[in-house]
């Protein structure tokens, strides 16, 4: 299913125009204090580096067609539908989805603060950096400093695109980060899966494993160990073929226009520093 990019998003007042739009724009509220923010993904995908090409090497584009008329469809010719019976759909617009719960579509309302370490790792889904928007730097700074000092994370639910999320807001190094969490009914329990009932472990077995753990214990994990070696191998092969002038096609058609290749880090730095994104 294609993702629709043309979603009407709420824009905070005084939001500066930038060529790289944030993932979500909204407001964090705690008490009566509201902080307009922009959300940027804290991760980037690097795997999708291969392009699909035609027989002559022309980069191909994905296009959408009507099954009946065979006509090519633009964004405006497509709607979202929920299948209630086979081939029978209820149409739902972006505006309707937003108006089902407009407050949650715009606000991350922090009504609960918990100890950072209280959230178990299985719940974490996606991470986003938050940048202040529309002159909210002072309130942003205040919330970040307060949360960081007390080691607390703020919890809320909010709606982004067409889905509600449970979210935890963390403060680290003066920067607020939103991490979406799974709802508890999305997490299976050991009973759901049917894992065997826990057994009392024999002391000797436990201490044998403790020794093994101690023998392989290290206090650090380097980023080096989490390198994507598979992609590195792919790049090596690409370079090898290139240096041998092997299997190269020059199409004169750039898949990406150079000026559109933007560094996410750069955008984040600029918006955190309160500068206009280039």
């Amino acid at each position, binding site marked *: *299913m294609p993702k629709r990019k043309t979603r009407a998003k709420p824009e905070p007042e005084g939001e500066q125009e930038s060529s790289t739009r944030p993932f979500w724009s909204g407001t964090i509220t705690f008490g009566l204090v509201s902080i307009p923010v922009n959300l940027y993904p804290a991760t980037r995908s690097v795997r999708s580096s291969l392009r699909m090409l035609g027989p002559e090497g022309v980069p191909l584009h994905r296009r*959408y067609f009507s099954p009946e008329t065979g006509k090519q469809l633009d964004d405006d010719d497509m709607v979202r*539908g929920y299948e209630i019976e086979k081939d029978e759909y209820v149409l739902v617009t972006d505006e309707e989805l937003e108006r089902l719960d407009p407050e949650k579509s715009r606000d991350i309302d922090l009504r609960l603060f918990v100890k950072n370490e209280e959230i178990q790792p299985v719940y974490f889904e996606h991470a986003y950096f938050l940048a202040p928007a529309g002159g909210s730097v002072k309130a942003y700074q205040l919330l970040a400093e307060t949360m960081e000092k007390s080691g607390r994370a703020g919890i809320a639910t909010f709606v982004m695109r067409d889905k509600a999320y449970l979210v935890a807001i963390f403060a680290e190094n003066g920067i607020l980060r939103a991490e979406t969490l799974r709802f508890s009914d999305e997490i299976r329990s050991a009973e759901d899966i049917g894992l065997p009932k826990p057994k009392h472990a024999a002391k000797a077995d436990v201490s044998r494993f403790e020794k093994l753990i101690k023998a392989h214990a290290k206090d650090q994990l380097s980023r080096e160990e989490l390198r994507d070696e*598979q992609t590195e191998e792919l790049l090596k092969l690409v370079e090898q073929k290139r240096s041998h002038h092997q299997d190269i096609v020059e199409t004169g058609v750039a898949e990406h226009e150079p000026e559109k290749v933007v560094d996410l880090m750069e955008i984040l730095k600029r918006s955190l520093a309160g500068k206009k994104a280039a």
Partner: protein
Amino acid sequence: MTARAIWTGRLKIGSSGLPVKLYSAVEDQGIHFHILDAKTKSRIKQHMVNPETGEEVPPEEIRKGYEVEPGTFVLLDDEDLSKLEPKPSRDIEVSRFVPSGHISHLWYDRPYYLGPDGDSDDYFAFVQALKNEDREGIVHWVMRGKSYAGAVRASGDYLTLITLKHSEEVLSDRDLPAPQARDLSEKELNMAQELVGALEGELHFENFRDEYRDRVLDFIKAKAKGRKPRLHPLRKKRPTASLERDLARSLASLKKEKKVA
């Protein structure tokens, strides 16, 4: 309900091995929409198209390439790609045990359970040992032609395995500048501290339900019956004008709530 294992392997620590089964720990509860042709209300088709000629290219004629310069591609065929696949193995290799909590949330990707495969004595002994040592194992393994890194942890009485993102995928906040406006006043900081303290509580995940999902489904049901359900108006929010005033008012209203309760 019992779930089927999606993979079986062996957790390998040094020369010791622990036979395990891998189960997904998450269950998708999302509402899925289809993209339809607005005129005919039937599901759209997608094709790969040559943008210059508008011609559709059938899947068997599609080639894959890596763009080394704008417009220049190095072609990789199926043989190249299968050579790049890591060697298949059933070993989930532990490289090290790091202190629990050492890995930032940012790295976590998808959670799985590891269950015992066959005899469970060693399995539960290992869970206990991980708890006693308060560590989690960093592991590497190959599953279905892809290599993974993950963290093996004790969760309750069982083992979970959470895949970790690659270092290229995670942006480091160390390189980011923290937003700085001016120095915050002592008073503002104290009030904010008090406000966070007043809102402090314990986290009970089961108290948070996805109510929005229910609203969307109810809305769809009503629409299917030909009704026009009412929607809420969209309103704009005013940003905070005076931090100190808003903090003071928030604290006052919280205190009032507490008195009533």
